[in-house]
């Protein structure tokens, strides 16, 4: 970066941005702070950001010992990974067909996708619950993953992206002897990484943080996802031990924060999604 002088405009911009960042980060900073405080200090009337007595070790060991944190995290990884993989595997061929192939049902499918975008999970939760109960698959990874296997959002996102892939490229691939499946695997997917990364953020963040659906289908702690585990932790173990609770929360938000920090550049690229250049 070149040396830039601090002009008035730049200072003003940075001030506004820093202020915004502070507002958004405040709860998280407060959480980090609380995770290091002892019970007595949390409930004292004085409010300090920096703990007067450092109780991080105590709180973290409580969080780690009273609840099986590793099971929660592994469950979170398994569920998020399964959901993401299945969503991508289903949505990419579907979006490819809708974007690049001409067939009768294309318009109807487009309408269905739009309708799908409008229906929230809460509307279908009850019928799904009843169905899973009848099938006796409650308390399983299947129950956690299956409702999200078809993501209309993914189809929609990929559809927009695939439309920008030049037709010539697809036709060249056909002339080179690729089947339609071959085109998806060899031409479309390698060029769709920005879209896939962007979708990965939405999908993984949404399902890592999801409490609603796991709360409905999981009662067995062995299948609890991180937010659900946190809920059990608060109800059964921690009570009003907010220090330990914040420590546990810190642990389960850590994977996402680390992932974002490591792949920050790619994520931003993915979201801005500069189209495909031949």
């Amino acid at each position, binding site marked *: 970066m070149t040396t830039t002088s601090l002009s008035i405009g730049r200072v003003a911009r940075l001030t506004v941005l820093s202020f915004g960042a502070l507002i958004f980060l405040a709860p998280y900073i407060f959480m980090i702070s609380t995770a290091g405080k002892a019970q007595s200090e949390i409930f004292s009337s004085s409010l300090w950001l920096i703990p007067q007595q450092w109780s991080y070790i105590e709180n973290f060991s409580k969080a780690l010992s009273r609840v099986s944190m590793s099971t929660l995290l592994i469950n979170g990884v398994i569920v998020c990974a399964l959901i993401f993989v299945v969503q991508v595997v289903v949505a990419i061929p579907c979006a490819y067909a809708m974007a690049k192939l001409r067939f009768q049902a294309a318009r109807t499918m487009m309408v269905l996708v739009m309708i799908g975008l409008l229906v929230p999970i809460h509307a279908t939760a009850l019928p799904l619950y009843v169905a899973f109960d009848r099938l006796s698959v409650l308390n399983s990874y299947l129950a956690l993953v299956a409702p999200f296997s078809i993501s209309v959002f993914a189809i929609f996102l990929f559809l927009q992206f695939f439309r920008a892939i030049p037709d010539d*490229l697809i*036709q*060249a691939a*056909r*002339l*080179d002897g690729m089947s339609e499946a071959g085109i998806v695997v060899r031409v479309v997917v390698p060029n769709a990484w920005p879209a896939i990364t962007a979708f990965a953020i939405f999908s993984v963040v949404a399902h890592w943080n999801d409490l609603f659906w796991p709360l409905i289908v999981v009662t067995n702690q062995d299948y609890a996802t991180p937010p659900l585990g946190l809920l059990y932790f608060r109800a059964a173990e921690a009570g009003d031990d907010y220090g330990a609770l914040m420590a546990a929360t810190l642990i389960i938000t850590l994977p996402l924060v680390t992932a974002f920090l490591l792949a920050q550049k790619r994520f931003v690229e993915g979201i801005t999604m500069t189209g495909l250049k031949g």
Partner: protein
Amino acid sequence: MTVLSLRGIAKSYGGNTILKSISFEAEAGEFIALVGPSGCGKSTLLRIVAGLDHADHGDIAIAGRDVSRVPAADRNIAMVFQSYALYPHLTAGQNIAVPLAMRRLTAMQRLPLLGSLLPGQRQICADIQRQVDEMASSLKIDHLLGRKPGQMSGGQRQRVALARAMVRRPSVFLMDEPLSNLDANLRVHARGEIVDLHRRAGVPTLYVTHDQSEALSMADRVAVMIGGSLLQLADPREIYDNPSHIEVARFLGQPKINVLETRMDVSGVVRFGGLVLAGENRSAAETPVMVGVRPEFVRVRADNGGMLRARVERMEFLGSEVIVHTRLDAIGGAVTIKSTPSEAASLSTGMPVGIDVTPERVMLFGRDGERLAAKPIGMMTALETANG
């Protein structure tokens, strides 16, 4: 030997007729340019030949085999696209290898890692690599093999696209305006290269372009398509000198052919200024006809002579030639003349001039645009016409 034959290809999209029964044949080693204004259906025709689009009617045969229902991949046709359509995620070398790998390797052998363990895979891959290298060196793109399309210039991409199309030895070669994305200098240079490549490959080539000079300079035969019809297919000289339709005459040639409307009397004689033509067709009544003459067969003279009288409207100096735009005194029609700088030196805007045409190069077209046979039977100067 006929390699490619098209019979009665017709296509329409939602009521719009794009192609109206196109038929022609291409010999082995022939270079045919499909030329026409944009929207004339030439690219659609190319895509139908490639199998990327399907005709509503008609048959396509390659080397005697009917391929109308054969999918694109099995027709053994190579195509160079206007946008080059290189795979952006592969290097130039990998791009060129794709068509070979797709044909020679089985699905199992193409798998990453596992594929390399299968018997014979290594041998085939080495063979493909050797062919890619050969192709690259013949096109002088060896140094580009490791680069991705995004890191190459337009001309380099175009060569890689050519290499990818040629490497598998197709039975027909299709090109869809492959030079239109290059800058003017490179384009003229690339013309020669493509013709060279075509000679070496000896495969019939269909070359779509909207640039008439490309068509005339490169092709063995030029097919002029206008409004979904194939109006004329002939060698460049024939199609330029003897267009069968007024649209063909208008499309080819720069500046455009001069077309003037007049009438043919019952005996089939057409008088135009001092020019008298005898048409072979006779009709019961006087019929409107069009007279066409190319700008290079019109001469301007500053004296009082000439078959027609006109006035200079505008002059364009182009270095080796001067284009003189004139308007006829009698009927107000515009006549463009290709003149030399020395001839044009004495002219100025607004000046009255005389115009002469080379009688043998005057063409007669009917009202429907079809060419009518005619021969000149007399010439008079404008002065004589006025008196007689």
